Each structure stands twice: as C-alpha cells, then as structure tokens.
C-alpha cells in the first residue's frame, strides 16, 4: 500500500528528507538512511519518535531517507507521511468489544486485569467508589499509572458526573496520568459537555498534553440523556462514543430491569442508530448477574442482532463469553476474506466499485468486511 520508496540519498534534495510510512505493521520499526547518520542518527530517531507519540502510533514501519534535514523538517515530513497513510488506510480500528470495569480504589485489579485480555479496561471513580474514598481512588489511579503498563490494552476512566463535586479532580487525575479516554456518566444537557470540554482543555494545558488529545465517551443513563443524544454528540469534537447505563435508565422509567430487556429495547435501538449515523462507537450496558452465564450470552446475542458489538462488563468471566458470542460465523469470515482479497487485487483504496461473486462491492462493504475479520481474530 506504500508508494514506491526512494532508496538513494541523491534522489532527495539537500536539507530535505523523504519519509515512507506503513501503518499495517505490527510493532515499531524505524529504518534510517542518511548522509549524516554517523553524527545524527539518534536525533533523527528522536524526531520521528516525537511525532509518533504525538500521533499516537504504536504500530508502524517508517523508512527515512535523509539528506541532512533539520529536526523540524524531519518532524513535518513524518507527520505528513502519517496523515497521508491514514487517509488511504483501509483498515478499521480494532473494535472495543469488551470494556471491563475495575473499581479504581482496588489495587489488585491494576496488575491483574490485563491478564484476562479485555479489549479495554475502564477504571471506575464513580459508583464503585464510596464518597469518602474518592480521594483514595484518585491517588491509587495516579500512582498505578506511574509504574504499570497495560500490555497495549485501551484504558478508559469513568469519572464522576459533571454535576458532582468530584468532576474537576477526577479529570485532572485522569489526564495527568496520561489516560486519553474518559467516560462521563449521566450526561443530559449539551451545556454539560461544552463545559466539560472547556475544563478538559484547561487541564490539558496545565498537564502539558496536546489540546484535543482527551476523548469523551458519553454516558446515557436517563430518558433526558437519550432524548438529547444528538446535541450531546455535537457539543464537542472530543466525543468518540456513547455508552448506555440501564440501571439508572430503568429506575427513571420506574420499571424493573428484566433479563428479557424489553424495557430497554427502545433506548438501545435509538443509541446504536445514532452512533452509526454519527460514525461513532456504542457500548452496551452491563449484565449484573455474574452467575447467570446463559442469560449473559442470550443478552449478547440480542444485542448483536441490533447491531451492537460492544459491552461494558463487571467480571472477567464475561470476557471470553462475550468475545465468543460476537465471533462471526465461518461463512461470514470466508465471504469477508474474499471481498478483502478482491479489493486488494483491484486496489480500489481511492474509490470505485468491483464485483465479487456477482455482487457489487464498494468501500462501505469493504469496511464491513474488515470489521468482520477484526471481530474474527483474537
């Protein structure tokens, strides 16, 4: 997928650099050819790494052919190469199927939860932490992130609601710990998200984090939140996904949450539809009865039939059940593989239509095929 790479320094203007990026690569590899390599190899390397960090890239193969460019030029060329590679990149981001809740005040979960291989760990400062222990939980989170790594697992923090007195401290702790994803629970009015966005920007500045790095997952847990979902999404560019909280929602309606889930069908359908329309992710509510595995699988199948492929979890034993239930069928996998192979042969990354087994295949179909493949491999 990369353009023809330049190998000779003589093909590069003096004080310039040619950068080639392959994002379909596992691991990080930087190859440097340079007229000043004996003197500046490590500086060139550092300039590239700085951009990779800024662009949040963990997997890439980068080839540098340098003819004595200064650092700013190396950074600029690297950034352009990454952005261009991204715009032509057909791969779909690995989906978050499972978001495993871990109470942020329990030290054990910080080093044990990655073993269970959830797609995402969400440390909770909200409901699982008693009011008197909010400070303790924030300190635990902050110290844990100084010394642990999470095997590349996506990390979220559920902060306390915007209206709570803990919101500012929670946000500060989260951003300062280097965490990029925040779930804000009980969202109802766009003004909250606008204010939260402002607050986050201030704190990003204080913590020396690039403006806009921090992303928001909107927690919808009330009928009002559901009603206002579009304005909540539009309130900030930081919004990348929605989550649903069924316990509070059903409490507002004054109904029991049943295992059958009829009472939340409307909310789920609405939210997954809105998420799809806005091209953002949607994560379904937790299943509370950890001993009822059959019920969990039934609910997951129901969720899947509505087009929902992501769920918040409260116990590690639910991870494998969820991932297994979301696995596409062999038939789906083989169809998807065919489509991807055909699209690669025809090289339609810049648009167009091809036929596979007599059916029209265009970009959305290819993207869906990628999604299926992504759900298929573990």
């Amino acid at each position, binding site marked *: 997928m990369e353009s023809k790479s330049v190998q000779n320094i003589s093909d590069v203007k003096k004080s310039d650099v040619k950068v080639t990026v392959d994002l379909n690569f596992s691991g990080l590899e930087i190859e440097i050819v340079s007229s000043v390599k004996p003197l500046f190899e490590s500086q060139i390397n550092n300039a590239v790494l700085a951009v990779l960090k800024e662009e949040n890239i963990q997997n890439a193969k980068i080839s540098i052919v340098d003819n004595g460019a200064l650092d700013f030029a190396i950074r600029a060329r690297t950034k352009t190469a990454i952005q261009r590679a991204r715009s032509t990149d057909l791969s779909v981001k690995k989906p978050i199927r499972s978001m495993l809740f871990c109470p942020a005040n329990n030290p054990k979960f910080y*080093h*044990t939860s990655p*073993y*269970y291989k959830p797609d995402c760990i969400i440390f909770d400062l909200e409901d699982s932490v008693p009011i008197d222990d909010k400070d303790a939980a924030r300190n635990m989170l902050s110290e844990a992130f100084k010394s*642990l790594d999470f095997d590349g697992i996506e990390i979220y923090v559920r902060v306390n609601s915007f209206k709570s007195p803990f919101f500012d401290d929670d946000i500060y702790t989260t951003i300062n710990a280097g965490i990029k994803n925040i779930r804000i629970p009980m969202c109802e009015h766009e003004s909250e998200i606008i204010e939260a966005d402002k607050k986050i920007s201030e704190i990003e500045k204080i913590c020396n984090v690039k403006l806009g790095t921090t992303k928001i997952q909107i927690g919808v847990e009330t009928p009002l939140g559901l009603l206002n979902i579009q304005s909540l999404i539009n309130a900030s560019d930081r919004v990348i996904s929605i989550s649903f909280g069924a316990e509070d929602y059903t409490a507002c309606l004054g109904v029991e949450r049943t295992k059958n889930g009829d009472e939340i069908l409307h909310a789920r359908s609405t939210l997954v539809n809105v998420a799809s329309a806005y091209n953002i992710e949607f994560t379904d509510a937790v299943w509370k009865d950890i*001993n009822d595995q059959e019920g969990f699988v039934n609910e997951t199948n129901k969720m899947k039939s509505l087009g929902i492929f992501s769920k918040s979890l409260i*116990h*590690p*034993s639910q991870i494998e059940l969820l991932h297994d239930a979301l696995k596409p069928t062999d038939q789906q996998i083989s169809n998807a593989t065919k489509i991807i192979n055909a699209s690669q042969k025809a090289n339609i990354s810049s648009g167009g239509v091809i036929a596979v087994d007599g059916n029209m295949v265009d970009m959305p179909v290819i993207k869906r095929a990628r999604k299926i493949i992504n759900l298929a491999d573990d």
Partner: protein
Amino acid sequence: MIKSNTLPEYIEGYGRVIPFGEEVIKHKKANIKKAIIENYNKVVPLEKAIVKTGLQSGMTVSFHHHLRNGDCVMAQVFSEIQKMGINDLTLCVSSLSKTHDSLLEYFKNGTITKVYTTGLRSQLGHEVQNNFTLKSPVVFMTHGGRVRAIQDEDIVIDIAFIAASCCDRKGNLNGVNGPSAFGSMGYGIIDATYAKKSIAITDFLIEKMENRISIPDTMIDYIVKVDNIGDPSLISTKSTRVSNSPMTLLIAKNAADFLITGDFIKNNFTFQAGSGGISLAVVAFLQKFMITNNIQGRFASGGITKHLTEMLKENLFKSLYDVQTFSAQAVESLKQNKNHIEMSAGAYANPYNEDNISKQLDIMILSATEIDLDFNINSLTGSTGVLMGALGGAPDTASGSKLTVVVTPSMRTRIPIIVDRVNTISTPGKYIDVLVTERGICINPKRKDLTQLFSNKKLEIIQIEQLKEEVQKLTGVPSDIHAGEKIVGVVEFNDGSVVDVIRGS
C-alpha cells in the same frame, strides 16, 4: 543465606546422607505378616491393647492420615501413652494436619522425639523449626518413599495404630462404612502389612463385616472401640466446587489449553491432579473437552474428589485408583462403583514396583509454593522458609509420569513465586516439564521435544527467566531470608536419597 545445594555427608540423628542423583542400594525385604487366624477376644480397652502389644520407650509407632483434619485418634492414643509413662517414641505417620497441633505437648515433653512424615505445618512446624524440640531431624518422605523405607526396614514399625471407620469383632476393617467414613485406607494398608503389631481403633464396631474388607483380620492383633475417631465435617475438608475466582480459572484454562493444544488429551490417557483449586478447575475444563470430543481416559488416580467420581459416572474415565478419598460423595462412589478402585500406597507409588500407578501416568498436574529457574519446586516450606506444606505424592508422580505440569499464580500478593533458587527442593526440577501461570507458560529447556512440539503451535511459550523478570518488575526483588545452621528436617526422594535439608531459624 544457606541454601540447600550443599548437603552434609552425615547428619546427627539421621545418619549417612546419600545425595539425590547418586545410586542408592537398599532393597531389603521386610517381613510381612503371615495369615494366621487366632481365636481370642481382640476387643480390649486402649491401655490394655498398648500393654499387650508390648509398647516400650524408644519404639516406633505409626498412624495414617485418612481422617485428615478431622482426626482425633492420634491425640487419644498419645494421651494414653503419656499416662503410661512411655516416651522417646518415633512417630511414623503418613501426614500431619493442622489438627495435630494437639500433639505439641508430646513433642515438647519428650514423648515423641523423632518423626517420619510427608508434611509438617502450623504449631508443630513452628516448634520443630524454632525450638528444636525433637532429638532428631524430621525426615520428610514421599508417599512412595514411605512405603519403600518400611519395606527396606529403614523404618521398623513396632505398633501400628489403624483408624477404621468400620471394624468387625475379628478385625476386618474398612473406611467406607460407619459415621466417620473416610474412604480408601491406602496408607493404612501398608502399616498393617509391615508393622510387628497392629491395633485397630474404631467408633463403629460390628459383629461381622458384610461388604468391603480393606484390611483383613489376619493383620490386626487388637481392636479398641472409642467414642469417636474423627469429626466427619472436617474429614472431607477439600473444596468440592470448582472455584469462580477469575485468577484460578485463568491459570486452569491456560493449563487445559496447553494439554489440549499439545494433543495430550486423547483416548486412554492417564491422569492425576492435586486437590488444589487450580487443579480442580483444570479437571473441569478437561471434562468439557472430553465430552465434546468423545474422549475416554484409561484412569485418573491419587486423591479422589467428587468431581472425578462424576467423570467416572459419565464414562470419561474407565477407572479411578483411589489412595485417599477427599469427600463424602467420593466415599459413596468408592462404595458403589466397582470401577472406583481402592489402592494401597504401594500400588500407587512404591518405587520398587515397576508397574505402580504413578509410573503409568501420562499427565500429572501439581501446585507449588515456589519454583526456581531450574524448575525445582518447593511445596514444603513457604517463601520465607517456614514449614507449611507436604511432599505428598508429588515427587513420586512427577518422576513417574510422562508429563508433569506445575500450575501456580506467578505471584501471591507481593511474593514472586518464580525465584533463582527455591528455599527447599521438594521435587527436583528434572521431573518438572512445564510451568503454567496466569502470565504465561514455560517449558523446561531439558524437554527439547516439548519446545519443538510447541514451536509451531498458536500457544505462546516464554522463557522462565523472562517470566521471573516480568514478575519482579512488579514485586521488586525480595530480601534474602536468613536461615540458621541447625538441620531440623531432611527431605528424601522416594529412593531414600536426600534432596535437601531444612534448617531451623
């Protein structure tokens, strides 16, 4: 810190040391009892039985541990012995549980001065290790090693006290009937066979044995009826339900994945697992796989759990060989199911028996308190060197089986389980093939065949050194434990050679 590798040539109170790995020439044949029917009234009070069998100071008495933590036979017997003024006894017991803290006063006052056992823990362990009460070091033996030592007359049992949950007036015994039923008499059978005199202790005396006879009357000299031999609620202490701790399940799943990926679970395979929570969960995963793939194993053996008896019922194994029975439900199975077979410790693990069950094993699953970079495991002392566990049949089955898998968390709270050198070697690393933890699976580099086998499988294998580093990055490197000089325990392999010594603190 004095670590175990340098063994002395001679240990006071133990004798000459043959280090593990050197050839041991023993193989004497001890006398076993002739089947002579004698017609006298065997049922007598405890004191009279002790007098009649001629117990004197300096002799050796034996017990089995089938009543486990519910045992109240040893306490009753030693109380009587002390009253009679007899002391300086050697205690040869198949194992000691926490309940045997009741023997502490007899350790302290010189009634008991030497001990052969497979394990020592709690207050007795503390006493031996800190106060050096015993005249001689405790000799730790494997279940198979104990049989060998008795057969070789390294240990000569003068009087065996055999607890039986059911006994008739002639002295036919079993462990399956009566209010204190405990199941198999696997360890007791050996004592009754080789002891000079045997006294049965029972709380359920019947006229005539109507079904199972585990130990025949020809081996029993006297019978003592007591009110109670044990507390049934503590006899079956082992958890019978599969854990729902996610960590336990994860380690078990990894172990099951290893066995399944390596194609070890196939028709007619033979299997044993310890009774710990992780082992139990491994069995549950295998059970599912066996049902789905229509696989029947030849046998499962060792300590028998309720779970295994259910698998027997489901025809997932052709038979169970039972050396000790862990729960009331399993006792019921032993009673009812003809394919649930009672097995003596000799048939199980006597190293002289070429065909013993431990040598027929394909797969053995063990747990450990520590494992080192040479794959030596420690199941006797904790990470701080404190006596707390037992050898059990682990060294027998590990050396006997084709594949030995150790299942353990890589850390317990802050304590890293993988260390440079274990505090005490209980099973030598040459017999350990695989380590399975929540963080990854390691193959003993000695097993090149296994490394080769898994080189092109999907399952990730890591180096044990790498796993150790990874864990120590979290825990930090623990300080050395300072052990004392005095040798308080000698760890024997089942051939009678010495694997390690335990020092006082």
